[in-house]
């Protein structure tokens, strides 16, 4: 009898233990599966967030960089404009000084204009100040240009007065050819042809 009792007790204790053990295993499995699923959800969500952030970062930083380049370029352009404006002031100053250096330059500008044009008879147009200087050296100019062109050249200073900083406009007598060698026109050409050098000169030493 005692044996039977202990057998029943033993079997039922084992059964109880198994119920709990099985429940524990099931419980662990549920938590493990949930953890795995949660990891996948987190990974997916983090990937989405990272992608959005990466896009945002790339686009915003690129925009900032572009904005910066634009700003620097605008500042440089503005500084070049200021340098050109100051150059005009300097040219006015040099012209009105009437120094020999300016008269020499004026002569060079006339000769250069004449070498660009074909023909033998020319008219020179200029402002009232330079008209006086050119008239003073007109015969000398005729000799020089005749020599360099290998032909007798006739120059006439127009009574027409140009509103210019200085320099000359030279045209053939028939007005078919014209060369503008005023200081404004020359500055515009220098600006167009030497923009790189102007930048190099003005920003020499600036680290990019």
């Amino acid at each position, binding site marked *: *009898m005692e044996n*039977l*009792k202990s057998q*029943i*007790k033993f079997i*039922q*204790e084992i*059964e*109880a233990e198994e*119920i*709990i053990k099985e*429940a524990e295993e*099931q*419980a*662990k499995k*549920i*938590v493990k*599966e*949930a*953890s795995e*699923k*949660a*990891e996948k*959800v*987190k990974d997916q*969500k*983090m990937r*989405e*967030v990272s992608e959005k*952030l990466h896009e*945002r*970062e790339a686009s915003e*930083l690129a925009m*900032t960089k572009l*904005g*910066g380049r634009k700003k*620097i370029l605008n*500042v*440089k352009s503005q*500084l070049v404009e200021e*340098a050109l404006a*100051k*150059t005009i002031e*300097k*040219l006015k100053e040099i012209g009105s000084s009437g120094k020999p250096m*300016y008269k020499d*330059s004026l002569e060079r*500008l006339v000769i250069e204009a004449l070498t660009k044009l074909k023909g033998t008879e020319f008219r020179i147009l200029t402002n009232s100040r330079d008209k006086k200087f050119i008239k003073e050296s007109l015969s000398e100019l005729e000799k020089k240009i005749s020599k360099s062109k290998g032909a007798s050249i006739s120059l006439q200073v127009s009574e027409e007065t140009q509103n210019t900083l200085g320099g000359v406009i030279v045209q053939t007598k028939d007005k078919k050819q014209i060369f503008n060698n005023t*200081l404004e026109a*020359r*500055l515009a050409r*220098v600006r167009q042809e030497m923009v790189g*050098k*102007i930048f190099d*000169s*003005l*920003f*020499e*030493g*600036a680290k990019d």
Partner: protein
Amino acid sequence: MSIEEIKNLVTQEKESEEKLRKAEEKATSLMEKSKEKARKILQEAENQEYYNDVFKAKSEEIEKRKKMMESEIDEKVERIRKTANKNLEKTISFLVKHVLGE
């Protein structure tokens, strides 16, 4: 088997049944707790607030970098202005020389 022994056996049987019932009760409780834990784990993973915080933190970092870049650009602009100011006379001379055909 005497009456007394049968009574003992019945008592033991009842005790065993009680043990089993308690074991099942414990098993049920374990399952419920694990389900609750699993639910919380998933809920936490789905919690948008966490991702919003991550997004916000990183966005703030991007903003800081932007501000830093802008500040670097401003410093660069300042350096460029100083350089241009230093080279202004030289550049004017260069331009005047070319305009006057020297």
